[in-house]
């Protein structure tokens, strides 16, 4: 007897018996038809002439209507039978048709599967269900076993057994344990899809889980697809795959989750500098939970190191949605490394809390960050007093002055290693034309230019006036009035919201009295970031090429215009130095699953993308000539994506070039919501999809041709509704529900 599965029929029924029964039931309308002909009342009637005349004229139509009605009724019953029998054109669309199977069994091994109910963990129950399923597989079936979280794979998914006999799979299954944190389910699905490709035979994916993820459901506005959509998308690349979701969770399970770990708004990670990071915790359980929140850091493949820890009490949700508990940390970014860093927040429940076994702690959250080096500033100044303020407020946190003695011009300066040019000199008489061209080229290529105009802004005129200005403006006379100083406005919304002024939202904002500034005109209104109280522009900014220009119409020098005396000049300088090198967060740190756009160096011919280890190997893609952008479409696996751009330099001698860009993909904060999804909610969301649900009471693989009771009842209801519709249609169209041939 062959162990090979039989060839699937062209049309198969999951429940052929129901089909044949339904076929037999088609006779019922015919019998009803004759029954009603036999069952009649008798009337002795006088007005027979009219009746006979009516009958003569209606007989043909009545016969046709009777026939149509009979056929409709038969068709409705036939459809009902078909619905119950669940036909399919090919075997993969029928989860439980017979024959050998290629099974991908994914076990949810997140921490929440460790929750105890009636003395056993959810994983224990899941293993029992899975073992039973494996023992009932048809002969010849092969099994690949995937743990959705495996500490040996840095918390990612891992195929612990590939293409094995069901018996072997049961042995390995028995030894599986829960991890210490949440799942990366999308990575697990990707792995399941890869494993499914390697299997021969009719595939089926079985997922044993506690459903403790809100993102099983997509966004209500459709922006983000649900997990099952992801699963289907990845596993169905080579044809439809039936998916069985085995729910072993408990509705009343308590849970504490580190839902999010994020960089504070407006901050960037600079190597060696402090960074504000906030962890957000939720408690989905019935009572407040006390424990320790630990922040850890790691670079590259190095092990996690504890940075700081804090005792926290995560409050209970009460009646409504759980309130987030937020804890801020200010760790220092390691000074050395490959330009990347990872932080991890771990919550550990106190060992002595009551009912600890019931507490399923999805306790960790990882934040991957690209770290940029300090901003390298080249000041152009003949008078260093202009920069004293910078030193006074210790802004060197993110700033590195390139040389202790500042040059008076750009002659002979190599700007390749400069991030920002600071024009801080009130005395330079004129900007040489070649310096003006060099400076424009520098900004166009992505550099930053910060200029103080007063007391002599004239030398910069070539930059702001004429063709292709850095920032269109005409620099006029200096307004100087010791008697009537002006203040920098803080009321304007644009000022308040602008990154240059972000610190001024604090109560510490004090504008100094400005007694002199360069009057400018001909600027674009939108270029003005802040004005003086008399309406004249105080700060302007504009993008130019890839870079930015910030112009402050006065100087920080006490001796000139009394701008000193408050924190504002320092804040402006500090913020401007970061703002001028700012890249939008989307270019550095993206949410996993969203595409990332990367700027390519000129002359790039090819990019090589190395995704995180869990997402597979590196891939290479050619780049069209002249392309300046590359879109990294698949960032679904959290972690670092290294993009190496290879090309050749321009000019007469073409030399190979290579530059690396890192993109950090972090999980969507919504994925941190580990409230359990109600199975009913999930079923409704994926109604009609080839997704089969079972709970602890139903077998994963029903014996014989037994179908899902839920689907059968749904098909039955559908059939009944169809019959009722037919009857209603007939009642409406023919004026009655019964017809007898006269």
């Amino acid at each position, binding site marked *: 007897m062959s162990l090979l599965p039989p060839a699937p029929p062209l049309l198969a029924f999951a429940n052929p018996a129901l089909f044949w029964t339904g076929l037999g039931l088609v006779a019922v309308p015919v019998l009803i038809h004759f029954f009603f*002909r036999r069952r009649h009342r008798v009337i002795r*009637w006088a007005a*027979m*002439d009219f009746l*006979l005349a009516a009958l003569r004229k209606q007989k043909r139509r*009545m016969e046709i209507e009777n026939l149509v009605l009979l056929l409709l009724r038969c068709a409705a019953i036939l459809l009902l039978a078909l619905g119950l029998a669940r036909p399919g054109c090919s075997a993969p669309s029928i989860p439980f048709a017979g024959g050998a199977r290629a099974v991908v069994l994914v076990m949810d091994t997140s921490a929440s599967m460790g929750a105890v109910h009636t003395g056993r963990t959810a994983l224990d129950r899941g293993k029992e269900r899975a073992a039973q399923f494996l023992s009932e597989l048809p002969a010849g079936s092969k099994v690949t076993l995937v743990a959705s979280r495996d500490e040996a794979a840095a918390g990612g998914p891992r195929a612990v057994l590939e293409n094995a006999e069901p018996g072997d799979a049961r042995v390995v299954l028995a030894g599986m344990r829960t991890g210490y944190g949440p799942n990366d389910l999308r990575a697990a699905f990707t792995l399941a899809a890869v494993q499914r490709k390697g299997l021969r035979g009719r595939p089926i994916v079985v997922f044993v889980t506690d459903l403790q993820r809100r993102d099983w459901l997509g966004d209500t506005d459709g922006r983000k697809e649900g997990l099952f959509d992801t699963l289907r998308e990845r596993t169905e690349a080579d044809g439809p795959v039936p998916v069985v979701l085995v729910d072993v969770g408990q509705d009343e399970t308590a849970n504490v989750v580190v839902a999010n770990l994020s960089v504070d708004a407006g901050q960037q990670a600079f190597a060696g500098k402090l960074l504000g990071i906030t962890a957000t915790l939720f408690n989905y359980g019935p009572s407040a939970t006390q424990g320790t929140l630990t922040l850890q850091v790691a670079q590259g493949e190095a092990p996690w190191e504890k940075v700081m820890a804090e005792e926290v009490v995560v409050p209970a949700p009460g009646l409504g949605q759980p309130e987030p508990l937020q804890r801020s940390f200010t760790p220092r970014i390691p000074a050395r490394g490959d330009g990347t860093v990872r932080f991890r927040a771990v919550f550990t429940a106190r060992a002595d809390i009551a009912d600890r076994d019931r507490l399923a702690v999805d306790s960790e959250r990882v934040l991957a960050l690209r770290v940029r080096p300090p901003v390298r500033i080249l000041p152009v100044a003949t008078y260093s007093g202009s920069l004293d303020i910078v030193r006074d407020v210790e802004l060197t946190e993110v700033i590195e002055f390139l040389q202790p003695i500042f040059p008076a011009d750009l002659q002979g300066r190599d700007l390749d290693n400069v991030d920002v040019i600071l024009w801080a000199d009130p005395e330079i008489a004129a900007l040489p034309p070649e310096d003006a061209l060099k400076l424009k080229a520098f900004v166009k290529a992505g550099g930053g230019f910060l200029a103080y105009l007063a007391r002599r802004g004239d030398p910069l005129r070539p930059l702001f006036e004429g063709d292709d200005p850095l920032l269109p403006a005409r620099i006029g006379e200096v307004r100087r009035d010791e008697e009537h100083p002006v203040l920098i406005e803080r009321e304007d919304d644009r000022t308040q919201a602008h990154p240059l002024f972000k610190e001024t939202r604090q109560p510490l904002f004090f504008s100094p009295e400005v007694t002199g500034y360069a009057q400018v005109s001909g600027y674009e209104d939108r270029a003005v970031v802040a004005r003086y109280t008399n309406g004249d522009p105080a700060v302007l900014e504009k993008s130019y090429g890839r870079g930015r220009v910030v112009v402050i119409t006065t100087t920080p020098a006490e001796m000139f215009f009394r701008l000193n005396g408050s924190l504002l000049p320092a804040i402006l300088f500090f913020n401007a130095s970061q703002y001028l090198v700012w890249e939008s967060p989307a270019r550095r740190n993206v949410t996993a699953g969203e595409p990332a756009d990367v700027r390519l160096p000129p002359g790039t011919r090819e990019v090589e993308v190395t995704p995180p280890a869990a997402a597979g190997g590196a891939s290479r893609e050619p780049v069209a000539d002249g392309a300046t952008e590359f879109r990294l479409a698949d960032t679904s696996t959290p972690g670092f994506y290294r993009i190496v751009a290879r090309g050749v330099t321009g000019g007469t001698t073409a030399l190979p070039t290579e530059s690396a860009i890192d993109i950090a993909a972090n999980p969507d904060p919504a994925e941190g919501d580990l409230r359990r999804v109600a199975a009913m909610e999930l079923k409704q969301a994926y109604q009609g999809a080839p997704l089969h649900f079972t709970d602890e009471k139903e077998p994963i693989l029903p014996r014989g041709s037994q179908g899902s009771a839920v689907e059968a009842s749904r098909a039955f209801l559908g059939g009944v509704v169809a019959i009722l519709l037919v009857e209603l249609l007939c009642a409406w169209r023919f*004026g009655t529900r019964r017809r*007898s041939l006269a």
Partner: protein
Amino acid sequence: MAGDSRKYLDPSVLNAIAGLELKARLIVEGFVSGMHRSPFHGFSVEFAEHREYVPGDDIRFVDWKVFGKSDRYYIKQYEEETNLRAWILLDCSESMEYGAPGGMTKIDYGRHVAAALAYLITQQQDAVGLCLFDKELRSVLPPASSAGHLRVLIHQLEIARTGGKTSLYHAVQRAAEQLGRRSVVILISDLLDNAESVLSAVQLLRHNRHEVIVLQVLDHEERTFPFERTTRFEGLEEAPVVMADPAALRTQYLKELEDFTRAIRHGCLGTASDFVELDTVTPLDVALSGYLASRGRRR
């Protein structure tokens, strides 16, 4: 016996009608105008007296002989003999036997109508006669106006039995031979015959200068055909048996009935005859007083 006779003269019927003044159209001027002047003056035989002419008198009645003798104008006045002769022709064919369960049959309804009208006419001191017929004349009671005659007439109604097929023209043809001089002929029938036969009968009566009033009595079920379940219709008057779904046939049936009724109505209109549809569920007083009132207004 008298008490039995009164059962057809339901007070609610007769009270409603007694207050009305029934006036015949054309030749016969009215049921209730027995005391009024009749248009048949010139045909009456008993001379009463002479009266001096006054302007406005019809000069046809001037006695020219007296004028020749006395050179003065006198009008001849006659004694009125009777001003109305009415015949009630009641259809007693088998089809009149039909009635909805719990309701009145058509023949019963016809009896009530006939008795009420006979009583009314007699009260006006006019003469009323009765013919019962199916395809043949079954009995004939000549007109008279006495109270005793009314009792006989009502007795005739009581003992009338249904049976036989309808042949309206044939029956009316036989009756016409008995009707004598011009009269008001009240035909009470379900008219379940072919339309030509019905209209021929009416035309025949009109030809003989009778005023014709056709009262068509149909059962409410015959007018609405309200049946739903599959039904076996066994025809009266030897009609065939039909198994049918009434709901499917209702629209067409009602259309056939309407066509037939319209043809009769138009035919009656063409011969200046009255045509009244009576439904066995319509109260008798309502049906008769409505008709008589509208007839009065036409005058």
